[in-house]
């Protein structure tokens, strides 16, 4: 059929296979559709009685949590202790990136701005990111990763499960898919916490240190922002479930729940208000530098 493999790859009928690109329209797209819109073809009208701007901000909160932690997890590629764990961490990062794409796209539809996921991810300054500070903490060692992932996914799973009943059908659909994924993330982290905590003296020490390290950022997860109470899930209602899961894991892993105080915000303002830790600026520099260097680039 072909003289060589390159010709087969370059089969003219199939040029779209090379790269999908960011340019609007294209094959299989109706005039109003965009290639980079993961909600394409869905009804994205805002339900009656819900404020579009609030819904948009709330989607950014949940989307930024996923986007920023996904970026941190991607830093583990080539750094994980074993190949299987590298693949696991990459898969978790991909799930979170998928959730972030849908949520950022939902944000752009909800407030009527039609802002794209890329625009939110690459062209917002630090103080417009609404993720909790836990998601942005520097990579740390594997013990800390396990602790962070355990805390984050236990909290997120409890929120997503409650969001399956959201008055916004798009958010409810995103949450229902997320529940299935985050269940796997939480189990992964919990099993590693037990393996390390109930392992050697040294692995126990490192696992406990990881948990102690992330614990000051747990309080923020359960400090409701006014937008969360208006259009989302008030995280306070998920605290008992979170405490119960952490107690189960710590008992099996012989770990102690840290008694350290919560890290305060700046005049009470924290990640949800756009106030972040020093690490966030470096993270965004890496995430955004290429897009900002070539802001008009399409491919």
């Amino acid at each position, binding site marked *: 059929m072909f003289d060589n493999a390159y010709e087969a790859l370059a089969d003219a*009928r*199939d040029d*779209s*296979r090379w790269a*999908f690109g960011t340019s609007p329209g294209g*094959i*299989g*797209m*109706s005039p109003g*559709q965009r*290639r980079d819109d*993961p*909600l*394409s*073809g*869905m009804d994205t009208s805002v339900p009656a009685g819900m404020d579009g701007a609030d819904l948009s901000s709330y989607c950014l909160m949940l989307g930024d949590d996923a986007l920023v932690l996904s970026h941190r997890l991607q830093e583990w590629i080539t750094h994980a202790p074993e190949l*299987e*764990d590298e*693949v*696991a961490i*990459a*898969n*978790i990062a*991909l*799930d*979170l*990136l*998928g*959730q972030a*794409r*849908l949520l950022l796209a939902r944000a752009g539809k909800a407030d009527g701005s039609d802002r794209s996921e890329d625009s939110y991810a690459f062209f917002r300054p630090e103080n417009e990111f609404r993720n909790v500070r836990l998601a942005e903490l520097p990579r740390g060692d594997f013990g800390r990763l396990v602790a962070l992932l355990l805390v984050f996914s236990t909290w997120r*799973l*409890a929120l997503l*499960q409650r969001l399956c009943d959201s008055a916004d*059908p*798009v958010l*409810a*659909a*995103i949450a*229902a*898919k*997320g*529940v*299935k*994924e985050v*269940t*796997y993330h*939480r*189990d*992964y982290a*919990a*099993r590693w916490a*037990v393996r390390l905590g109930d392992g050697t003296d040294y692995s126990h020490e490192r696992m406990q240190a990881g948990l102690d390290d992330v614990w000051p950022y747990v309080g923020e997860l359960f400090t409701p922002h006014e937008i969360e109470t208006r259009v989302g899930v008030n995280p306070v209602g998920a605290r008992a*479930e979170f405490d*119960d*899961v952490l107690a*189960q*894991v710590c008992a*099996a892993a012989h770990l102690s729940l840290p008694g350290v105080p919560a890290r305060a915000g700046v005049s009470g303002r924290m990640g949800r208000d756009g106030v972040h830790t020093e690490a966030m600026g470096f993270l965004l520099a890496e995430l955004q530098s290429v897009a900002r260097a070539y802001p008009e680039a399409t491919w």
Partner: protein
Amino acid sequence: MVSAWAVARTVTDPELPMLTLADLGVLREVSEQDGHVVVAITPTYTGCPAMDTMRDDLVHALHGAGYDDVEVRTVLRPAWTSDWITGEGRRKLADAGIAPPAAAPRRPTGPIPLTLGPPARRVPCPHCGAGATELVSEFGPTACRSLRRCRACDETFEHVKEI
């Protein structure tokens, strides 16, 4: 002219090319009105990077069959479940050495229980048929597959996860 559904149902999955999108339960609906074809597909996982490829493959196949006006829509609800993989799809997976999923877990109404030990799933080896297999990793080459090992023949194999 072959119906739009008959064309769409032959399109294969980019990452599991032995299966069609219909076998996988990813192809949800094909409707046709006055020459305008609307195809609805749903992602297995939200981060599934193959959605764009699926969309293009569907459009190419339908164009090739004479349907010029084709639109592909994403649906998220109800969320994809491995239970939607057809009997034919399960047979093709097993033939390719990939263990098909068992029934997906029923979601309880209360909090989702934590699974601290390796999940108690009986996944027979697709190579030798032995029942004693163990989990190597819940996360395999793609989001939808885990990695297992057979205690009898020692082969590792992939298993489509239950979700």
